[in-house]
């Protein structure tokens, strides 16, 4: 992605009415989360969520082998893939061997990460994304803008026009009920006639060899229990040790994601149904390298609930597409730099470091600390634009020296009072250009006030 986050966000913010609507839609989801997590044991659940993930990472190789043993014994074929290209090749090979040409796929951020759809389509395989939100963005030839709510940036009138063009719904129809009903017929047809179903996984349970898939629509189940072939595409970090861990995970996941106590469908599937085949593709694609980085390792604990996105004032006001990475928002901003620091260092700065993302994270990933650490690494690697790096160094020198800081403060308070505001808020000032106001300038600093009051020794 050539465009930086601030540049893409500026484009998003040009339509201020839409930006405000986007902000409110996500804040509404965040508030539902707040209500749903008002349990006396919520903080204990977060502790358990963090612990079960750290535990699984400490035993990752062993748990994956246990999972493989159980799954294989139950008739599931387990594959391993080092990277995205290998994952795509494995999936393509399974589909080709089965002669499959129509695939119904439920939500999987991993297949987005690996770019699976274009690879299958180039080989003449038709892929229908069957989650309603995912289908909307697929029909519009866009990536999802949110990991749980892929079409959160679409208005119902626009979806109506899209469905009119692609599904033949009546022109001008924009009621969510009517559009969802049309999508039901359209998607059930694709789901019931697919040669193969591809799903992601919310968890792999080592103890049972089971794959856990959570949906509200039931689309993953319609696909996997109808098609003769089911392929699960999953990152290796999704493994957990036991069903007890699964209980914790299921208690925190939907509450954090959408404010529901649990998703409508939570499927635990450990064996193919009689006469059908089931494959699981375990994908590394940079995860084991991340595991070797103690400072950033816990980003792998992410359960993809999206709570940090809904909470983030920057995400809500810049939209998922402005991040230029498959996973947007605060969690994407700490995952992307590990993939390519040069290309994604800007995301570490797409935050006010307000800490809201860390506060809502159900597995207690310290996202703000990692954002800050990535800023340091970006600077150390020389990835920052030259002018920006010089400015940060100047600021650093001033902030590190009390006398220079006091002098700079006095100068700034004077200057901001004396210079006419028309000059201060002109087009040259990137701060006010981005529709921000300047703060009211105080007459004196806190230290000056304290000294005047005789409270400073």
């Amino acid at each position, binding site marked *: 992605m050539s465009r930086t986050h601030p540049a893409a966000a500026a484009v998003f913010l040009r339509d201020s009415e839409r930006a405000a609507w986007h902000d409110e839609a996500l804040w509404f989801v965040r508030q539902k989360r707040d209500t749903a997590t008002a349990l006396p044991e919520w903080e204990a659940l977060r502790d358990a969520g963090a612990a079960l993930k750290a535990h699984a990472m400490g035993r990752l190789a062993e748990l994956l082998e246990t999972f493989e043993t159980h799954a294989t014994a139950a008739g599931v074929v387990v594959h391993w893939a080092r990277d995205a290209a290998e994952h795509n090749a494995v999936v393509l090979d399974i589909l080709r061997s089965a002669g499959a040409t129509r695939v119904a796929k439920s939500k999987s951020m991993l297949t987005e990460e690996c770019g699976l759809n274009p690879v299958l389509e180039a080989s003449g395989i038709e892929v229908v994304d069957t989650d309603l939100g995912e289908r909307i963005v697929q029909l519009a030839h866009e990536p999802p803008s949110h990991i749980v709510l892929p079409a959160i940036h679409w208005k119902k009138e626009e979806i109506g026009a899209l469905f009119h063009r692609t599904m033949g719904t009546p022109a001008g129809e924009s009621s969510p009920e009517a559009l969802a009903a049309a999508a039901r017929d359209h998607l059930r047809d694709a789901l019931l006639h697919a040669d193969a179903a591809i799903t992601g996984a919310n968890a792999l349970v080592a103890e049972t060899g089971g794959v856990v898939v959570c949906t509200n629509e*039931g689309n993953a189940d*319609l696909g996997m229990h109808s098609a003769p072939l089911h392929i699960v595409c999953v990152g290796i970090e999704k493994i957990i040790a036991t069903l007890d861990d699964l209980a914790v995970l299921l208690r925190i996941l939907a509450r954090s994601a959408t404010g529901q106590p649990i998703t409508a469908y939570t499927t635990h599937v*450990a064996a193919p*149904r009689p006469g059908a085949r089931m494959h699981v593709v375990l994908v590394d694609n940079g995860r084991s390298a991340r595991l*070797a980085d103690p400072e950033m390792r816990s980003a792998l604990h992410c359960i993809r609930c999206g709570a940090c996105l809904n909470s983030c004032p920057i995400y809500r006001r810049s939209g998922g597409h402005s991040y230029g990475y498959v996973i947007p928002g605060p969690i994407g901003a700490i995952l992307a730099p590990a993939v390519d620091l040069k290309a994604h260092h800007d995301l570490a700065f797409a935050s006010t470091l307000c800490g809201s993302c860390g506060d809502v994270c159900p597995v207690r990933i310290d996202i703000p600390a990692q954002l800050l650490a990535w800023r340091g690494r970006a600077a150390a690697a020389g990835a920052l634009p030259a002018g920006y790096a010089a400015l940060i160094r100047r600021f650093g020198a001033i902030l590190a020296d009390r006398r220079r800081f006091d002098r700079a403060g006095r100068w700034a308070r004077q200057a901001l009072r004396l210079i006419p505001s028309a000059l201060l808020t002109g087009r040259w000032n990137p701060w006010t250009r981005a529709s921000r106001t300047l703060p009211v300038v105080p007459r004196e600093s806190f230290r000056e006030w304290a000294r005047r009051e005789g409270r400073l020794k």
Partner: protein
Amino acid sequence: MNARDTVLSSIRSAAVPPSPAAEQVSHAGGTVDLLEHFFRMLTAVGGRGLVRRANESIVDLVTSLAEDEQGGVVVVPGRVAVAENGAVYVDASDLVARADIVRAEHLVLVVPAAALVPTMHEAVRLMPRGSACGWFLSGPSKTADIEQSLVVGAQGARTLHVIFDAG
């Protein structure tokens, strides 16, 4: 090295320090009326619940539910009901075909009244060992993908009833 060995050796060379398993989470589940809590959560997730008394016929109950509904009604036994989220665990071994669980337009889950537990912590322990497939079902199929407007009956069941069998 093949992909499996490469991935596993790469994980092992990361040398992640061992970390203890999660501790049990205690909760106040025992102090509330579980049935009342279950029905409240079931209603919140778009389902409906009732209790069959000893003198009522299950066939009559299901028939009375089915009269209101267009399309097929599928009745399946539930193993466990979870008060905190209105979910019922259904095991695939109790079904003719797995796909019935999502192809049915209307689902009726019949659960023994004694099989009601407070939270998921107790519920997962009652999943049958070695189960090939099973579900926690919480209300009917739904979506909020169009402007966060909740639409019930997205792709799976349009209605979901839970009957507690106290007979």
